């Protein structure tokens, strides 16, 4: 049982119009190498589902391949607003659906638990309920309270990046788990990249850090630095200098195309070369 695939082979399985949920959180452990492969694949009309989105949402919006985003947050944490997201929100045909952190989790969890909805108090008395047409309110059958019914979210695909994986598709996450486990379980097909592929016996020694169970994954790719420019604890931190460069590049069309040519329309090895190569990355980013 060997589920290793190249990033390109994974993307070949994704059709136009697919819904894709992405793990990680803002500048932490986003599957950026897979996202760049998705960008290169030419797939379009995609729906993205994120909890705390960051550069992955911003990059794909900047490439014009997204028609809908479900999100609780999109931004660059200490770096501020995500420029392409901001532009698209203010002035584009992309459909945005604002959820909240727990309701995204609950929507994925409802899909996993095969129920059409999960109830919560989160969102009551806020405008999230006003602008988000997916939610309903329901009356609890016991005490008559008003609750929000969060509908199940059924992503076609999940993309996640983890520290270690084995060929069978088990994955070790050493830092924050974010919502990656929910993404992997809720999606019909889960593609996972990792810093390093380990032998199964070696992987199993990580105990409860083995958070992704192979029954939920369909493809694994070894892509060291696969989260860059976001961080991957406990190995490397977010590359804020590169994020500055990225943000500047979104400022006008010419710079944005130049950035794409240099950083997106290249394979992963070339990408790492453009970042100065692995040694330089170690010296700048290893913690």
């Amino acid at each position, binding site marked *: 049982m060997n589920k290793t695939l190249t990033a390109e082979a994974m993307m070949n399985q994704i059709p136009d119009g697919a819904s894709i949920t992405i793990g990680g959180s803002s500048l932490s452990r986003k599957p950026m190498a897979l996202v760049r492969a998705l960008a290169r694949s030419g797939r379009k009309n995609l729906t993205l589902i994120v909890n705390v989105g960051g550069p992955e949402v911003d990059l794909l919006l900047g490439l014009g391949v997204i028609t809908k985003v479900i999100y609780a*947050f*999109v931004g660059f944490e200490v770096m501020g607003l995500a420029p392409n997201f901001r532009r698209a929100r203010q002035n584009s045909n992309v459909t945005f659906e604002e959820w909240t952190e727990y309701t995204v989790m609950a929507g994925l969890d409802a899909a996993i638990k095969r129920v059409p909805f999960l109830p919560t108090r989160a969102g009551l008395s806020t405008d*999230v309920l006003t602008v988000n047409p997916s939610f309903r309110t329901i009356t609890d059958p016991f005490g008559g309270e008003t609750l929000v019914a969060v509908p199940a979210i059924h992503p076609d695909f999940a993309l996640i990046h983890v520290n270690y994986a084995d060929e069978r598709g088990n994955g070790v996450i050493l830092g924050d788990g974010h919502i990656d486990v929910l993404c992997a379980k809720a999606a019909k097909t889960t593609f996972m990249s990792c810093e390093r592929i380990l032998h199964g016996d070696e992987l199993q020694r990580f105990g409860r850090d083995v958070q992704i169970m192979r029954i939920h994954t369909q493809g694994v790719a070894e892509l060291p630095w696969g989260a860059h420019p976001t961080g991957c604890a406990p190995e490397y931190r977010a590359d804020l200098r590169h994020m500055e460069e990225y943000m500047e590049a979104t400022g006008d069309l010419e710079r944005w195309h130049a950035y794409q040519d240099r950083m997106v329309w290249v394979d992963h090895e070339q990408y790492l070369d453009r970042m100065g190569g692995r040694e330089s990355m170690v010296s700048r980013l290893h913690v």
Partner: protein
Amino acid sequence: MMEYTLDELMIATMAHQFSGEVMVSSVTAFGALAALVAKKTHAPELAVLATPESGMEVTPLPTLTLGQFLTDVQRGIPLTMEEIFDAIFCDLFRIWINPAQIDQFGNVNISAIGPWQQPKVALVGSRGIPEDTSHLSQIFYYVLHHNPRSVVSRVDFRSGAGNGPERDQLLGRSGAPTLLVTDLGVFTFSGPGGSMAIVSLHPGVAAEMVQERTAFPIAGLTDSFAITPEPTTEELEIIRTADPLEVRKLELLSGDKAAEKFVAIYERERQALHVAWPTRSRI
């Protein structure tokens, strides 16, 4: 009395609000340092987090990128997002939230300036604020630049629920706004109809200045107010030791100065981490 700066006054003031055995988020430098001051002085039971989704039982070192690495180097207890939200639902979580707008009834906004559908400025999205404002018995806000664009009559979008009949009907007092600390003073939402009222003004701040920088008339403005207590020497020492790179100052700076400090911190913070927390091995 040691000299202190506005950030230190605000952090110490924020620290005084923490009590009991609750998880405390350290998502911003101000919040992290406030939690740490409280834990080291009057609230030793606090369970301080490295970042909201990461490890418990850590001493936060305010950083730009290394929040979750603290879990590793300090052997914090790793948490899941589910743990965090369960703590919120169980009212065992506290966080200082820094909204883009807060209004006279304590509604807050981090989603959009202007109409949500066609924003003038699209912000980040409500994140976990709706969860906080429907479940926590204490909700703390801070605003660094108290002015009519941040302390507004009515938020453009309710990311978090303030006071009012809708809250009363759907949520009762659960998640109602407790306190607001700004660069001018300390406020509650205990005025008429759950509106903003002054608790204390920072040293040197006049009530008129607060009214000028607030987009709505503040109730009881002509009353006499307390002056916000100044930070103690102990508090200042805790803050400065835990934040040698002065990440806390970043939130108040802007323009070139901010950019310069930002780079300086980013380049130096790995070293600061390793000096403060030499690596220990796991079992």
